[in-house]
């Protein structure tokens, strides 16, 4: 990634971190722990973003059969898993302190867990196939096949379980985002930073994947 972006990211991320700790906690009644919000939401966002990247690259692989697409897909999935674990952990901590239990089967919690299971299954599948082309084909198919199921789940679970997620208190009945400007700004900046981090590490992973001997030079 060009150096300009690296410095920009450094500055912006530093600004975000400072803002997160200097400003008032975003939801006063919840206290200090709500500062997690600035990291939890972007982590969840990147998890989903990573899945879409993995899925689109899987489709491209199946169409064009070039292993580069498979490298891109699997790198995205690996990163997605990481961010997913992050999102689940930060979410659980938040849940423990605010709702009393680490796990409550809230629909959004369940959705992120399913995504984690899908990622895990995807990685398990990859490690069970030796030949590169077969591995690429099978994991691409699975990545695509799991998507409708995940969509179904996101729509099915809210009908079964009540939602405890505070998002419902941030977006009010008129649908507009009911957040004071500094909080919103910090959140958006954090989202942007997380996305940049994802893109940066993804590019590194893909570069390594294409040419394993380059690792030393990076």
């Amino acid at each position, binding site marked *: 990634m060009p150096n300009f972006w690296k410095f920009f990211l450094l500055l912006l991320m530093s600004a975000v971190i400072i803002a997160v700790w200097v400003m008032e906690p975003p939801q006063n009644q919840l206290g200090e722990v709500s500062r997690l919000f600035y990291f939890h939401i972007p982590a969840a966002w990147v998890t989903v973003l990573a899945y879409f990247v993995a899925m689109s690259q899987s489709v491209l692989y199946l169409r064009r*059969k070039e292993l580069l697409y498979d490298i891109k897909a699997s790198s995205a999935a690996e990163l997605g898993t990481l961010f997913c674990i992050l999102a689940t952990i930060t979410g659980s901590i938040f849940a423990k302190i605010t709702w009393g239990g680490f796990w409550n089967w809230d629909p959004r919690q369940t959705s992120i867990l399913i995504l984690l299971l899908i990622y895990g299954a995807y990685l398990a599948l990859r490690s069970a196939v030796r*030949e*590169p*082309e077969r591995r690429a084909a099978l994991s691409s198919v699975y990545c695509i096949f799991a998507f409708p199921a995940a969509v179904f789940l996101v729509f099915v679970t809210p009908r079964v379980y009540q939602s405890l997620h505070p998002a419902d208190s941030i977006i009010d009945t008129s649908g507009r985002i009911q957040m004071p400007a500094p909080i919103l700004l910090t959140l958006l900046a954090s989202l942007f930073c997380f996305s940049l981090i994802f893109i940066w590490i993804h590019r590194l992973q893909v570069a390594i994947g294409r040419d394993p001997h380059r690792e030393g030079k990076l």
Partner: protein
Amino acid sequence: MSIAQIKISGLSKSFDGRDVFADITEVVSQGECLVITGPNGSGKTTLLRVMAGLLRAGAGSVEYFLGDSVIQGQGLKRNLSLVSQDLALYDELTALENLHFLSRIQDCHFSKEELAQRLSQFGLGGRGNDLVGSFSSGMKQRLKYLHALLKEPKFLFLDEPTANLDEEGVRLVDEIIKSQKRDAIVVLATNERSELNYGEKTLQLGL
């Protein structure tokens, strides 16, 4: 009768970064037999599989012609047979059940009597209702030949044709190759010196 032809251009295949064969180019026409030879592990079986459509080529292409038109997909499958050690028949079914299933799924319908007759021609008379699992490897090989020829293929691929066969069987294969050469293209992969004589064209792998 349409003349059959196979055009191979620049065919390459690699596994795990290692080249199995590269840049194979050849044209074979009806009446000609192509013999693929080379030491063990030189990729003869892989080449046959790529040509039969079981494996995807890394680069290059194989084209099949009947007359002037290209045939591919299901049309090609109906006209192509491959006999190989690693292509098994169903052990838990009888010989007749195997033949019945494999032929009708390719749109060829035979009566029980016709099939029984063919079995006798291949030295398997009276064994139609026995499970293939109880056959010796030589008998299984004969049954595979029978299955391969049932649909009167224009392209007959044979991988190590006389492996596991006794004298009688070797003679049978010899008859098959000689008679099929007239109406079809035969492609043979073999290590046997004697079988090199079948081929008007030869492809050496593993160089």
